[in-house]
């Protein structure tokens, strides 16, 4: 593929300082503590496609979402947005307007004191996209219709809407600056299952109509299967497996991915024997040596405990696992 990807990250990392205050640290004679939320993540998203990142809570997927829109600055590595350095792109309003974000909590993502009209018009005003009040009202009405709401809803306040409707308002706001790249941080996880499907369908429809590129963050595998072209599985701040969506779901390779697949409830196979994953996700403050998954992995051996596996390609799938590489799995 010769076309520049919409978004590309190389060895992206973000550490948080979670040390105690200096005085307490001195008294307890302990050093600084760093939480390695994201530790070396590389991926690229071709234009017009959807990449999903899945993983358990605390695996760093939301941090990745915030890193790629510039809400956090990277501790290491870089992000390229349509071939340019992210920070340069963020400084230029014309480039900044090409990326938008949709958030998880529909109850916190809309300013409760603002009318829907003003919420949706905010990016339009900030980027000066439409001149004149009348034209602006028209554009907001158009956006509201596009996400399946009535133009008359513009004068209402967010609390007058349900969760699903609010998420539609969030999408309308995100679309108002004519973005090409949308980062969706768990956009459906706060919604009812029936409403989730509506929102996902809306997003897919908008993607095919407007040619959008999505980075989709979720912990829900069913949702991910429905929307993604490619899926990256994250564990403790790193991608452990990355594959086209169908490949990943039909033939998962990494032991962690397989464990996740095992955990999906299944109508046909109900009552079958499951392979449980023992233990808890280790702390990202003090991650295990070698492969971070080794304490919970049924295939772990001495090499896994000592040496950190890198992401390596096997056919369509990339995995970071010694066992897969050695054919033990």
């Amino acid at each position, binding site marked *: 593929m010769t076309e520049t990807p919409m978004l590309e990250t190389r060895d992206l990392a973000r550490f948080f300082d979670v040390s105690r205050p200096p005085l307490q640290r001195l008294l307890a004679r302990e050093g600084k503590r760093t939480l390695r939320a994201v530790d070396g993540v590389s991926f690229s998203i071709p234009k017009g496609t959807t990449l999903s990142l899945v993983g358990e809570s605390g695996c760093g997927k939301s941090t990745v979402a915030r890193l790629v829109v510039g809400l956090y600055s990277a501790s290491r590595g870089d992000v390229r947005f349509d071939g340019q350095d992210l920070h340069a792109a963020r400084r230029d309003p014309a480039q900044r307007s090409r990326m938008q974000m949709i958030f998880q909590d529909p109850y916190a993502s809309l300013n*409760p004191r603002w009318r829907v009209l003003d919420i949706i018009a905010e990016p339009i005003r900030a980027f000066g996209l439409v001149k004149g009040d009348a034209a602006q009202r028209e554009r907001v009405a158009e956006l509201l219709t596009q996400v399946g709401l009535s133009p008359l809803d513009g004068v209402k306040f967010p609390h007058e809407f349900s969760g699903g409707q609010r998420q539609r308002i969030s999408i309308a706001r995100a679309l108002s600056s004519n973005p090409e790249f949308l980062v969706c941080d768990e956009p459906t996880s706060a919604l009812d299952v029936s409403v989730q499907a509506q929102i996902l369908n809306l997003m897919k429809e908008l993607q095919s109509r407007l040619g959008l590129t999505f980075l989709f963050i979720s912990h829900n595998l069913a949702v991910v299967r429905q929307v993604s072209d490619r899926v990256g599985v994250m564990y403790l701040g790193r991608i452990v497996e990355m594959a086209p969506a169908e490949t990943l779901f039909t033939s998962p390779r990494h032991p962690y991915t397989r464990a996740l697949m095992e955990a999906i409830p299944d109508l046909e196979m109900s009552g079958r024997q499951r392979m449980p994953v023992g233990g808890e996700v280790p702390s990202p403050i003090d991650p295990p040596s070698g492969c971070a998954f080794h304490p919970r992995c049924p295939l772990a051996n001495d090499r896994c405990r000592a040496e950190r596996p890198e992401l390596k390609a096997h056919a369509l799938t990339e995995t970071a696992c010694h066992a897969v590489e050695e054919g033990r799995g």
Partner: protein
Amino acid sequence: MMRRFFDSDIWWSFTRSWVTIISAIVAAICIFGAVLSPWIAPHNPFDLTSIDLMDAFKPPAFSEGGDARFPLGTDNQGRDVLSAIMYGAQVSLLVGFAATLFAVLLGVTLGLLAGYLGGTVDALLMRIADIQLTFPSILVALLIDGIVRAALPREMHDQIALYVVIFAIGISEWPKFARTVRGSTLVERNKEYVLAARVIGLGQGAIMLRHVLPNVLGPVLVIGTLNLALAILAEATLSFLGVGVPPTQPSLGTLIRFGNDYLFSGEWWITIFPGLALIIMVLSVNLLGDWLRDALNPKLR
């Protein structure tokens, strides 16, 4: 707009409480009586030509020896106590409102900055607030008063005294507002609507003013109302001690101080009536503040 108001929960909870309605009426009477005193007061206690020393120490109209012209009696110089109270309440309310407004402006601005910017700015501003809280307002007022008296010529003392009181009370009460606003700001700044504004690339100033500020003002209104009563009391205390407003513009506190000299010689009305007026005013404002706190707190509904 009016319909919205009468349909609202606030109006509903207002009509459910007799205490609140009465205190609102009383507070309204106090404020109107004070503001309109030049037009509705029976006498002008500052107009030397209308004051007759022969009228001095007249008891209230309802007691023996009272004069119908002076419903609440007269003081040692023959001034009508009722009129003096009305004029005095005007000064008290002016100082109360101005000091509270000053404290709100200062506290909200600094609290918003501390909460949103965090880090060193936060630590610095909050430590200043802590230090501020260790000084009682009387000490601040005495300090500023002393500096002003030393620095400025004698003639200017009276002109500036009112501002000194407002400043002294305001400066000693801003940390309350700053702490409240900082707390709410810390919650709001991590909400996703603020993140959405940051993704668009809005500046910090715009986010603070347009997004965060409207969402942290609710508690400020409540504390502001309760603080108004405290500020009126603080002014009365300062004036009673003689470091408050100048004697040419007596507030309720000044009137109580003047009258105090005659309390034990039988002319009780000179000090008791201004005292009662102060109590009624502060109590009604306080009760209104209490109601507002409950009405705006969804957990108590």
